[in-house]
């Protein structure tokens, strides 16, 4: 089983639209939405929820005003400025519990925090594991890890060949959590200076975690000079550019219809995405064979 994670660095470059189409094109796979703070993949795949689990994570301090002696020690030691006027700001509190350990009056308790929900759903393209982080909650990285864990389990139960994950933007906590241990990263890059800058950083993160990367240039024709720059940068880094998708409003039209673009249109965008999956699945198969050969050799 192989896990492909789709990232971009910069947001809004087309990750979810492309992943939605991969759900149509790939056989024997489980889909996973690892962008837990702004999940959109369900809008293309029309999931029917089969299982819904609460995601409990972290704790929040709570001060019992009757027991509190107003000594102020908790306020002094809290490094997250989460206690003011003997009240806890639940948004600032990181749940370290330092205050509850040192309170002489034992007035502070740590309360468990419900931080979101995890879903296992059926779609006409196969199983989807997705999640929703609670409003203004922390620990998106942990929820991403849970999504991947759950997706792996579903994939094992179904004998799936691939797990295809829609990833979050950026390079921080949820990206690190999505990437570590994945077999391959597909980076969706747009040919803007911002897109190029962000690609360099997300590619460095892939390297840092030892995950091989492939690049897909989306809307490549909005600035062909920048597209060439991306291609030559990728070449210098030994990263293959596996597809160049043109700009076309059919992507938005398909989104409005709530279907993956390859089901909506037969045009150039769809052709290019189909070729993209053919290439990626070939590369993943090759990678799988190499790993198998190596393990046999050992």
């Amino acid at each position, binding site marked *: 089983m192989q896990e492909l994670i789709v990232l971009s660095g910069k947001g809004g*470059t087309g990750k979810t639209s492309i992943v939605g189409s991969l759900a149509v094109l790939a056989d024997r796979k489980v889909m996973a939405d690892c962008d837990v703070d702004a999940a959109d993949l369900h809008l293309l795949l029309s999931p029917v929820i089969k299982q819904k689990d609460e995601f409990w994570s972290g704790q929040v301090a709570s001060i019992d005003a009757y027991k509190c002696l107003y000594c102020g020690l908790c306020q002094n030691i809290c490094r997250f400025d989460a206690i003011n006027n003997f009240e806890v700001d639940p948004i600032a509190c990181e749940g*370290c519990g330092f205050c509850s350990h040192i309170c002489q009056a034992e007035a502070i308790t740590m309360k468990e925090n419900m931080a979101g929900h995890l879903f296992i759903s059926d779609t006409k393209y196969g199983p989807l594991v997705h999640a929703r*982080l609670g*409003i*203004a909650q922390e620990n998106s990285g942990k929820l991403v890890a849970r999504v991947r864990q759950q997706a792996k389990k579903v994939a094992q139960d179904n004998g799936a060949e691939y797990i295809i994950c829609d990833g979050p933007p950026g390079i921080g906590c949820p990206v690190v959590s999505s990437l570590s241990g994945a077999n391959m990263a597909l980076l969706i890059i747009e040919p803007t200076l911002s897109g190029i800058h962000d690609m360099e950083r997300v590619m460095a993160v892939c390297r840092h975690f030892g995950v091989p990367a492939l690049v897909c240039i989306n809307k490549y024709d909005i*600035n062909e000079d920048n597209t060439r720059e991306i291609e030559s940068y990728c070449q210098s880094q030994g990263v293959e550019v596996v597809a160049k998708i043109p700009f076309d409003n059919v992507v938005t039209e398909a989104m409005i219809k709530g279907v993956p673009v390859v089901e909506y249109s037969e045009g150039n965008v769809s052709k290019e995405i189909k070729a993209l999956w053919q290439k990626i699945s070939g590369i993943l198969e090759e990678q799988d064979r190499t790993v198998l050969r190596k393990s046999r050799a050992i």
Partner: protein
Amino acid sequence: MIISIASGKGGTGKTLIATSLALSLKDKYEVTLVDCDVEEPNDHIFIRPQITGTDPVEMRIPVVSEQKCTFCGECARICAYKAIAVFGKHVLTFPQLCHGCGACSYLCPEIAIIEETRKIGVVEWGNSDGIKFVQGILNVGEAMAPPVIHKVKEYAKNSDIIIRDAPPGTSCPVVETVRDSDFCLLLTEPTPFGLNDLILAVETVRELDIPYAVIINRTGIGDAGVEDYCREEKILVLLTIPLDTEIARLYSRGVALVDGMPHWKSRFLQLYSDIKEMVDARTNSIKR
């Protein structure tokens, strides 16, 4: 006044608005532009600042003296992040998991734990043709953006107008950026993804109790869902920007909108006066 520019969905034009708003206001006010998207900071591409200073962003992590340690395991018991573990006669620390709360070093009965600093990023500051500029950069491979954002905010104080460009999403980095702002602009696009993520962003700013309004970017590409939602929820739409290949081309080349199309400047001045009116109205109603 602190104005944060946020969005649930990425790529909806936060950077475009932040940079053009700063450029439009700089002749009239003292403006600081703060790039709080420390994972992927892009404002510098559009305003090309001269960086005049830089400071490291450090977190404090525990270092255990195995001479003093009696391996009692108290530190491992109290650490909420499982960033310290005791195995027999060894103590292991996991700096990537540590939030730097300081509980272990304070509570160690043997005083065997001291704290060292670990660099996770930098804050840079400078200026660009009359705009004060501050940005944070998270080191590649680091997970925790909020401490970098926290520090960036400390370096951007005492200006008439502080404009904070937030990262996309709705979780802790966004909350850290937005939470002590006077106003929040929420960017979106008129598509189902834009609407879904706008609703999440609206719930977040409501939770934080910050006045907000919406800007819709690339009008003309999608459907009416975002407009309908804003009307039903009585959310003001302060600006719309049409889908325009010229705007997209300028953006792709790293040219700020008001530099490439100066007639937009008056729209941004109007945007600011609308924001100011909303903030003043709220301040007055609180006073009353």
